[in-house]
């Protein structure tokens, strides 16, 4: 019985992990808390909806298109809104506020176009598989597969590709990056495009699984933030694993109590981490020097 919940948790966590990985890339490279990540997420889902229902594109190419457009969207957000603020000596509050404002604008535009109600992509019973006592739907399998593939791909790219090294270098060096001659603009563009793409993949999978409404973005961003902090901000892969763990914890909470305490569990985790181990669970303990 508990196994079913754990598997459900992993499948949900897979999506959290992807969104978190995306947010982590963006945060590490730019240090902006990208609330608008949720807007990109929601946009991707609605693009998929549009292509599938209005343009009669079949699901996989529709998703690919949605992901590509969402990646572009994320990139544009940075270029148009964050980058101009990054030039001024920024403490970050202005960027966070901008991000919030953008989020609000985008999701309400989506609501105006598509309506406030939940939309499902297609009706009918999902095909399921039985593995022992556990039942999984086809979409859930897709979620796990997508997670594994993208997680590994991202880790490999970060470690071995030139762009991955660039992203890691900019992330590690923060303010010094410019002085060191690193191509910050390129790193930002990559982080935003790739990170938004990951969120978009998660959004498409979620859309197919449970449907969409304009307000799904914020909870996802918040869970992604918790996953990111929980795993340890500096360690990219940790955010993905954090997502999985949160997915499992949420489902175990549902199993033990009821669905209504799910969100609370996530935020209790966040508070516990912030208070006891702000550097995250998977980061090696570094000596913190006071100013």
């Amino acid at each position, binding site marked *: 019985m508990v196994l079913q919940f754990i598997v459900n948790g992993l499948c949900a966590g897979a999506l959290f992990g992807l969104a978190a990985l995306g947010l982590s890339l963006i945060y590490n490279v730019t240090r902006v808390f990208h609330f608008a990540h949720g807007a990109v997420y929601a946009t991707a889902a609605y693009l998929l909806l549009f292509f599938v229902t209005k343009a009669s594109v079949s699901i996989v190419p529709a998703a690919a298109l949605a992901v590509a457009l969402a990646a572009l969207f994320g990139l544009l957000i940075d270029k148009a809104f964050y980058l101009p603020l990054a030039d001024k000596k920024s403490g970050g509050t202005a960027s966070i506020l901008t991000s919030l404002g953008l989020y609000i604008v985008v999701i309400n535009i989506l609501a105006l176009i598509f309506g406030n109600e939940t939309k499902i992509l297609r009706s009918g019973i999902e095909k399921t598989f039985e593995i022992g006592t556990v039942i999984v739907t086809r979409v859930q399998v897709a979620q796990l597969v997508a997670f594994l593939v993208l997680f590994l791909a991202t880790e490999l790219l970060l470690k071995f590709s030139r762009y991955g090294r660039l992203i890691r270098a900019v992330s590690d060096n923060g303010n010094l990056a410019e002085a060191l001659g690193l191509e910050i603009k390129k790193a930002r563009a990559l982080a935003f495009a790739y990170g938004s793409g990951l969120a978009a993949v998660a959004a498409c999978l979620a859309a197919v699984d449970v449907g969409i409404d304009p307000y799904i973005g914020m909870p996802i961003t918040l869970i992604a933030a918790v996953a990111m902090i929980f795993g340890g901000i500096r360690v990219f892969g940790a955010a993905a694993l954090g997502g999985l763990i949160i997915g499992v914890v949420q489902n175990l909470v549902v199993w033990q109590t009821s669905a209504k305490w799910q969100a609370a569990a996530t935020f209790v985790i966040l508070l516990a981490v912030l208070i006891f181990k702000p550097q995250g669970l998977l980061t090696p303990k570094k*000596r913190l*020097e*006071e*100013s």
Partner: protein
Amino acid sequence: MLELNNINKRFGGLKAVDDVSLYFTERKISALIGPNGAGKTTIFNIISGFIRPDGGTMLFRSKPLDGLPAWKVASTGIGRMFQDNRVFGKLTCLENVLLAKNGNPGESPLGPFFSSGKVRDFERRNAEEASKWLAFVGLGDKKYAPAENLSYGQQKLLSFARLMADGRELLLLDEPTAGVNPAMIGEILALIKKIVKEAGKTVVIIEHNMSVILEIADFVYFMDDGRVETFGAPKDVLADERVREAYTGL
């Protein structure tokens, strides 16, 4: 006045402060000199309470300083000027200096409501004194200007005005003449001598400018690699071979 005994501090693999013992006499100007990375600013940070030493004790006016939170160290009577001159940018020059006084009854949230008379009086005297010091350093006409609008040199003068208004007895000055044009250095040194002689304060400075040391320091400690290598009167210390080597080797 201030006594450090066997202070040790390690950062990761680096021993920043190695068994350092220092003694700063009341109403005198002591100096810490040494090459960059010798541990001087670290010592200041340890005294101020921003960094906890790994070992050793500190006594301020015979009372232990160890373990006190930084704000308490400051309110106990140890003031600080930072290497990267700090001012409250968005506040006016006047407000910057007004903040230097401790024990302001208006700084409690209840103060303005339950002791408004006391607060008013305190603030009036505070403002008078602050204006005096601002005028003294030549910033009188900038009283209501936001500190961030001032030039670097002017901001340094602002810090000195704040220092003069400061009620604290021991002042740690980290490179007070750095970045200041030579014409103003004389003024600043005169200010420092003034607060020691007339206000009876104790000053410890970190300096790289040897002529400054020769002119105002009463006692000098030379540090290198986290250790105190030699100490004594300025003339003697500066004549020491090790000191000469460290500075010409730079």
